[in-house]
């Protein structure tokens, strides 16, 4: 967004005339643009933390940073035109299509993995183990009594599995068919709804089995386990013969995919140093899980948690901006 620059210049002069002085951040590598690098913020804590870490590190290197709140998917429109510059978390599992579409235009560049690995799988609270003793092995779900334990009035006698929003993909409808599970897939519309149902069921110790992903605060807050499906392989998704059911695809677990960093293609030329730093950025699942819990469960602010991380990991992040 272009600001009314002339007005602000005039005001700067006025301010200087009044004797108010200020020191600009001057560590920036030479010849790189002084325009702000716009990093997008979404509505989940992990992403806020990742982005704030990156932003604060870039600030320490002297770059001008601006955080912009943007929708996870809608942001690609801005990344393509250069209105936005950097998005720190694009999940393989939920953002792949939009990311591929954007990178195909040549306007958006994939800057590699964040080091975090997205886990997405069927998950149940620990108290359900009493009602369905064979878990976490997936074959326990084939048992009719077990499926009925997970049922509701609308799905009985079949079990009710709460899947992610349709937009997340995940092939759960196909998985249920391929593995011949006596379950009905109900899709939540958004992940807030997903966790609202989990919270509700957990409060009542009521049966629930649903799609959970990590890194997230939920696996830290609630006691429970992932269902162990036959291991994922690319062949299992593509070739019916692979994995347990010889006639169907998707008869295995979900892939565990990386979380990517993407940027507007112009970043490379405009801020080469920042470009390198963003490429170098990595954190891992455990670190992130701990930070997310600190914010969402212990009530710290994102800034506190990030400041803490920066203080403890100075060697790491100073390596990114060298």
């Amino acid at each position, binding site marked *: 967004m272009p*600001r009314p620059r002339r007005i602000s210049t005039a005001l700067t002069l006025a301010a200087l005339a009044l004797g108010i002085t200020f020191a600009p951040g001057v560590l920036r590598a030479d010849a790189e643009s002084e325009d702000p690098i716009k990093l997008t913020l979404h509505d989940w804590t992990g992403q806020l933390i990742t982005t704030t870490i990156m932003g604060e590190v870039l600030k320490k290197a002297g770059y*001008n940073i601006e955080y912009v709140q943007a929708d996870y998917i809608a942001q690609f429109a801005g990344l393509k035109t250069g209105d936005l510059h950097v998005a720190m978390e694009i999940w393989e599992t939920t953002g792949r299509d939009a990311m591929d579409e954007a990178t195909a235009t040549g306007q958006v560049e994939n800057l590699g993995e964040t080091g975090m690995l997205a886990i997405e799988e069927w998950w149940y609270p620990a108290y359900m183990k009493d009602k369905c003793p064979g878990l976490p092995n997936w074959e326990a779900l084939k048992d009719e009594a077990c499926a009925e334990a997970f049922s509701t009035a609308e799905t009985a006698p079949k079990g009710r599995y709460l899947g992610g929003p349709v937009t997340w993909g995940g092939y759960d409808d196909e998985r249920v068919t391929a593995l011949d599970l006596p379950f009905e897939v109900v899709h939540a519309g958004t*992940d*807030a*709804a997903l966790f609202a149902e989990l919270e509700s069921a957990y409060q009542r110790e009521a049966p629930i089995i649903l799609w959970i992903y990590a890194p997230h605060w939920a696996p830290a807050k609630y006691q429970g386990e992932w269902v162990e499906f036959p291991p994922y392989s690319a062949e299992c998704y593509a070739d019916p013969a692979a994995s347990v059911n010889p006639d169907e695809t998707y008869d295995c677990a979900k892939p565990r995919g990386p979380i990517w960093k993407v940027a507007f293609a112009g970043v490379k030329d405009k801020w080469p140093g920042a470009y390198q730093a963003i490429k170098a950025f990595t954190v891992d699942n455990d670190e992130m899980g701990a930070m997310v819990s600190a914010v969402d469960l212990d009530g710290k602010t994102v800034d506190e948690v990030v400041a803490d991380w920066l203080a403890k990991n100075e060697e790491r992040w100073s390596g990114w901006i060298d």
Partner: protein
Amino acid sequence: MSAPAATAMIGQGARPWTSALTPMRLIWAAALLAFVLLWQFGEPIAEWAFKYPSALRLPLKTWIGGGMDWLVEEAHFGLFSFTELTRFVAAVIDLPYRLALGLLSSGLLSGQGSDAVQILPPLAWVAVIGLVALMGFHAGGWRLALLVATCFGFIAVFGQWHNAMITLASILIAVPLGVAGGLLLGIAAFRWRTVDQALTPLLDLMQTVPVFAYLVPILVLFGFGPTAAVVATIIYAMPPMARITTLALRGVSTEIQDLGRMVGCSGAQMTWRVMVPSARPGLMVGVNQVIMLSLNMVIIASMIGAGGLGFEVLAALRRLDIGAGLEAGLAIVALAIALDRLSQAFSQQVRNHGENDRRPGLFRRHPLVLAAFALVLATALGGLFVGGLQTYPENLKVSTGTFWSELLRWINVNFFDQIEAVKNLLLLNILVPFKRLLLDLPWAGVVALLALAGWTLGGWRLALLVGSLACLIAATGQWDKAMVTVYLCGVSVAIACMLGIPIGILAAEREGLRPTVLAVIDTLQTLPSFVYLMPAVMLFRVGDFTAMIAVVAYAIAPAIRYTIHGLAEVDPRLVEAGTASGCTRLQLLAKIKLKLALPEIMLGINQTIMLALSMLVITALVGTRDLGQEVYVALTKADVGRGLVAGLAVAFIGIIADRLIGAGASRMRARLGLLR
């Protein structure tokens, strides 16, 4: 209409139900019989009537996608491209926005991003509260001053100040633009019949095509950020203003118009000096709607870079912090109430202008303006020494903390089974069978029946319009999703009307009840549905039932509001005539007031349908499988064509309902002798 006409009307109600076999009834009976036969036995013979043949499917999706690409990348006016034009518009809107944001939130800045240096601080919170209170005092006396100060105070105390000022800045830009645009469009439609004809479908589209469907093109055209959010807000919030303007102008009594002509008004004078001022009560309903709808867009606006309270609500509910979400949501409501009451009071005040104040001296003439300046200056200087004057002190913030979460947990743990039982009863006996029925019907038969209804109510033109729109839905391959949409909206609108119209009547009959009812519906309309959607999910699980609750809660407002407005506007002379001819209170209501208020009530139902359709995008968030979900999926895949086609299908449903109801209403009016 005169008093004898009113008496005649009362007499009409006593007419016995005639059961003559008119030709129209015969045609309908034959059509229904044919429909049932087709539905029950037609499938083996005419499969195409049940499932639209995919070979004949219109590739509208690809056309729209291609057209949009052309618009964004190639459309050119010679000197500049279409994108450059929209970017220019964005820059023009951006200027006042930055100014408002600077004043309210960020302060005047030099430079950009984290390099920016604050030259002047924003208005202190004390100053803003003082300013709105002064405005309130000026427009409506100390009562209003107290009300708006309380609203803003509430925002400060609950720690929402920073976010609220960001939201307020974008509202301050969007509302005047929406009101002005709507007013001009409405006047144009009133004066020129062709404009009216062209505008009506356009307004329907603006109001019913879900915002998500055109979000991506708007972002590309106007750039990512608050300006795009302002544009989307205006598109969504302007239609009611335009509609109500036209309606209100048509409602100006002929005597006033004659007077205007007799004193020799020019066209412009007639419009601005006679018509618009006379139509003010109606116009203010429009202003109210623009404010309410703008604040309703706060959540979606925050998804495209507007930030502010909407972002706070989303973030809080993603971590299931119900209390924090509710506090941010109520801050939006507080803003809405303050802005609405202020604007209403100002409009009342403009009416009483006239005698110029000729008291000597600047101070005597403008004491409030001077007081405002003094306040701003004093708080700015004071703020340099006492931080608490500039920003609300951290340690004085209040929060409901975990209270709401705990309350919800208590209800959940203790009453879930009872709630579930009621829900299952409704779901398994009414909702699910109705849905199955609709999905089961042959599309060709439904299209034919709709066309017949159009013909009965409004002639062959309406039949053609309704029939071809319905056909288009089938031809773009969205029949099933459209039926789920009709089911969800139909059930919700029916419930909203069954609850809303009686409440509206009650509130109109009892003056004492009215302020409470109005406050409640203002709250319902501006409290982001996300705030109650998530608790609803906890109690009712994801699915149609939760979606229905959200739609009813949102769409009930116009049903109530227009009923009150319609009853309040009934000509008191007719009521007197009724009383004089010995009507009881109930007769007065049923035989005179309700009949005369019918056009307004129908408009209310129309708006209820439109709002219900506009909620589809939100209900997609709790897992419905309708057109709203289709739009949402298209958004996440950045598929402009798919999103717009589904969005258009939603709009078509809205237009079909609107036209049929409209034609039905005018027939009814004609029968009652209400036509002007």
